[in-house]
């Protein structure tokens, strides 16, 4: 494993730059991530990349933890930790600075306009991501019915969402969808 030192440097450079390029969320840099880690560095095969992508989507927590798995494959545990920190820290530092300015500007008209004006835009974006998710997760008609029923339960009752997702998982586990 004489390449591990070099791999660590590549991990640091690749993911810290992708961190700042991931405008709009971690998923926007996945093509570049695949290109570099499969094509340029040969850390994983195409099939492995697709599989670990699926793992990172299904696992709890932010899906950007895909980089943790890539780092692990490239350089073991140290690589996993380095990739995670490199992917998170630069962007988080930037967001921290913005949030400081935001909290100081509590009474500015611009902040009021953004809070009120962006609300309908954000709801539109959330609706769009639900729509895209339901198309991506190879939904057939049974899954759409399950989604519909769960949506009604979540919207019109005070059921703990954990029961709803847990119940839906159970339906899936039983092979009904």
């Amino acid at each position, binding site marked *: 494993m004489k390449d591990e030192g070099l791999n660590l440097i590549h991990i640091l450079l690749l993911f810290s730059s992708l961190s700042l390029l991931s405008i709009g969320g971690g998923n926007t840099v996945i093509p570049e991530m695949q290109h570099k880690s499969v094509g340029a560095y040969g850390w994983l095969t195409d099939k492995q990349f697709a599989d670990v992508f699926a793992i990172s989507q299904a696992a709890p927590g932010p899906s950007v933890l895909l980089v943790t*798995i890539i780092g692990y494959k490239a350089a073991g545990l140290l690589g*996993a930790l380095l990739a995670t920190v490199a992917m998170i820290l630069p962007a988080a530092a930037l967001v921290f600075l913005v*949030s400081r300015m935001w909290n100081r500007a509590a009474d500015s008209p611009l902040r009021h306009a953004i809070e009120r004006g962006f609300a*309908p835009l954000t709801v*539109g974006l959330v609706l*769009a991501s*639900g729509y895209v998710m339901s198309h991506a997760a190879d939904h057939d008609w049974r899954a759409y019915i399950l989604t519909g029923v769960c949506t009604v339960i979540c919207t019109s009752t005070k059921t703990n969402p954990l029961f709803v997702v847990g119940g839906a998982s159970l339906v899936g586990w039983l092979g009904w969808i």
Partner: protein
Amino acid sequence: MIPTSTTSSVPEPSLAELAWTFNHIALASFGGGLSAWSREVVVVEKKWMSDEEFLSALTMCRILPGANQINMAVFVGSKFRGMAGACAACFGLTFMPVVIVLAMSVAYFKFNDVPAMQNTLKGAAAGAVALTFSMAIKTGRKCLTGVIPALLLVATFVMNGVLHWPLFGVLAIVAPPALLWAWPKGART
């Protein structure tokens, strides 16, 4: 203590509570729907933010580079406890998921197969999509106060969700009229 306009009547969370809460959000979100979970906990359960504050922060977190939910954790953490709060929330959100993802990938590279949970995850994903839709319905009810916000909402959904236009292009079109509509009356730039 003099309450200011930004802080609500809820007591400010400690660092441990921030980390614990975001850990709870992360673990609940298997199958996806992290945004909906964040709102459920941050707005509904803990009342750390109003819906409006949460939604605008969410859009800014989408515009800025970085994973949206990590950005949201930084935003909420720094609101209450500055840099230490941001680190605590971020640590809470990522620590257990990193451990889980590592365990899953060790298993994957050993057995060369995704752990046999496909059906369960399919069900969980259907539930997570439902959670996301119900968040859109619940928050939509509050902000649909007239024709203009309704038009803005539908336009954003169609351009981003149906036509798959990139986020920046969509916002370049809808943000200016949204800000114009929402600008506080009587205020000057």
